[in-house]
């Protein structure tokens, strides 16, 4: 038996066990298992370093880790303060050079200035010269999650996703409270003390990507798509109840209310028209269908003139094709108020008419109210019809038609 008693690493212990089985040697070790001593108050278990013969208790490990963390936090704070000082100085100098008051200077000004002063042709935008506040580029300094005694600060620390589950439990508490309130009000017949209303507009909840990034950047918690799904279910359930103001504010952290006018179409470039040299309002858009390509201009102040490749609606011989061209105007009730000028190439009759329809409906958007624009999008007139002739397959006559089937 070995005389010297030394603490061994895990690998050595395993090797010793194997030797014992194989050769019959015994390796005397003080087998100090990590969690051999359990006491009420402190984690007094023991861990062993193979490099040193020092035996460290778990409570001491925790305190040493905490001290290291606090040291790093102090260094980080010093760094941040230095960078902010430099940033503020440079900002003032830049403003002086540009002739602007530093309070009126925006990020766009800074970006323009740096692109002028320090131009670079690098593709990677992250490696170009930048001028940012340290909060924008330094990593977030997380708080140490424990108190002095080693107790965690967050009451759901052991769930591994404390802030996510805190949010979910808050929503659950609110739903419970509101349910009980409804019962109370129903039995008593009185009006509630606070102003409680149902939501008129639905909420649009956060994307999965934004949701995951939020928790990763702020709290360094990994959240999954299933968690996001559950989040949406819970918030939806809450939003269907009769809510107080504080509940609506709580929901606004995690979603936006859809207004009657959708903001994307209102503020986008689709809703803006241009003006001619003569002062006429117009909008040109391209439309396509199959292999037909159309270029359509719509003049806002018109009298219902339609021109297709220099001709009128007679360009199309079939009635169906003419109807396709007229349909967006009929929907928006703007036949008399609008002039249309279109040029078409490629395709056949149906394809060309479909292309003009596509271009026309997109060009009509600036001259039409938001409700009508929503109607057009609902009708599918703004989408490009992606149907194309299906290819022929070998072993068949055509795309779908098979050869004659013989019993024998």
């Amino acid at each position, binding site marked *: 038996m070995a005389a010297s008693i030394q603490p061994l690493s895990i690998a050595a212990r395993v090797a010793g066990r194997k030797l014992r089985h194989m050769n019959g040697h015994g390796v005397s070790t003080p087998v100090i298992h990590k*969690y051999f001593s*359990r*006491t*009420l*108050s*402190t*984690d*007094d278990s023991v861990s062993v370093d193979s490099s040193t013969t020092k035996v460290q208790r*778990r*409570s001491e*490990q*925790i305190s040493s*880790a905490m001290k290291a*963390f606090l040291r790093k936090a102090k260094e980080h704070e010093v760094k941040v303060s230095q960078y902010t000082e430099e940033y503020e100085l440079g900002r003032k100098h830049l403003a002086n050079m540009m002739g602007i008051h530093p309070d009126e200077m925006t990020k766009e000004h800074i970006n323009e200035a740096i692109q002028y002063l320090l131009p670079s042709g690098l593709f990677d935008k992250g490696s170009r010269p930048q001028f940012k506040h340290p909060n924008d580029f330094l990593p977030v300094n997380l708080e*140490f*999650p*424990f108190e002095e*005694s*080693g*107790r*965690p600060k967050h*009451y*759901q*620390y*052991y*769930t*591994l*996703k404390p802030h996510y*589950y805190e949010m979910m*439990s808050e929503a*659950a*508490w609110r739903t*419970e409270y509101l349910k009980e309130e409804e019962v109370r009000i129903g039995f008593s017949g009185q009006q509630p003390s606070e102003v409680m209303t149902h939501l008129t507009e639905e909420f649009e909840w956060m994307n999965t990507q934004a949701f995951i990034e939020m928790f990763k950047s702020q709290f360094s918690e990994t959240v999954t798509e299933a968690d996001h799904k559950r989040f949406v279910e819970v918030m939806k359930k809450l939003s269907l109840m009769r809510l107080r103001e504080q509940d609506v504010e709580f929901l606004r952290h995690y979603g936006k209310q859809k207004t009657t006018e959708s903001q994307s179409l209102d503020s986008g470039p689709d809703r803006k028209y241009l003006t001619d040299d003569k002062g006429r309002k117009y909008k040109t858009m391209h439309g396509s269908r199959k292999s037909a390509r159309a270029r359509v201009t719509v003049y806002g102040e018109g009298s219902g003139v339609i021109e297709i490749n220099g001709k009128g609606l007679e360009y199309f011989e079939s009635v169906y094709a003419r109807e396709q061209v007229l349909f967006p105007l009929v929907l928006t009730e703007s036949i008399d108020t609008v002039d249309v000028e279109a040029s078409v190439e490629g395709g056949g009759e149906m394809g060309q008419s479909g292309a003009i329809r596509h271009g026309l409906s997109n060009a009509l958007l600036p001259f039409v109210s938001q409700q009508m624009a929503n109607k057009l999008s609902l009708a599918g007139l703004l989408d490009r019809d992606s149907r194309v002739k299906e290819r022929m397959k070998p072993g068949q006559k055509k795309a779908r038609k098979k050869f004659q089937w013989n019993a024998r």
Partner: protein
Amino acid sequence: MASGCTKKVDTILVMFNRIKKAKSLAGAYIPHLCPQRKYKTDTKAKVVLPRPLRIERIYEEKVFKNQTEKPLAKEVELVDYKPMENEYKRLLGDTFEDNALQHPDFFQVKEMVDMQTLYRNRVHYGHHFGCRHPYMVSFLYGLRHNTDIFDLDRTLPRLHLALNFIAHVVYRGGIVLFVSRNAQHMPLVEKTARNAGEYSHCRFWKSGLLTNIDRLFSNLTRHPDVVIFLHTQNSIGSDHIAVTECAKMLIPTVGVVDSNCNPTFITYPIPGNDDSPDAVKLYCKLFEQTILRAKEHRKRDVQK
């Protein structure tokens, strides 16, 4: 009446009269007194009695046999424990004299609960007798309308024990973790944990949370010193993983065990109802009260 049955009939009548006198059995169901089957072959009154179940035999022993009323559960008295001072101080870290263990009920836990409150909050109701776990038989009093009824003479001292233990742990600065996987009562359990200044885990339990703690957490974390189970079972109906993990890590557990639960790995089981909201509210209130009381004591004694 057949001659062979006279003896049995006489005993039955005697027992029946005794039952009427015994108040505690008002409305109780005693199946072996009601003749169940009469076969056509039995031309004469040959009563076929079913063999009584084990619990009904216990019933019988208590009531029918003239025994003096023993205390059904021993009143547990804590032994006077005098720790070695040096070792205790080294482990505690805090230097304050610990007189708490000299008293059997230092935190006056017995005045917080009594039998009436348990009865009113429906703690004595169990599940259908078909769901009965065999290890829970010793905690049951009997059957009523096919539901198991807990013996509150056995739950009450165990409740006191558990509360006293929790108080002592919190008095020494221990971490308490509330665990429950019942969706109905999850908000309440989390609220009690937050109000008491302790921790809760009523969500998906990642296996290895306690046994493999260093891998799952990025920082070195302390294990909880007590784990309290308001529901020892999963949402599926099987035993919660945390029970075995605590047993492996030698973490003492307190748990409310219903008649369909397994009480083996729980150090301080509280046999009682875990399904009705009144009972769960009572338990949460009691745990919160003990923890806050113990923390008050700790504040006072640490300052000294």
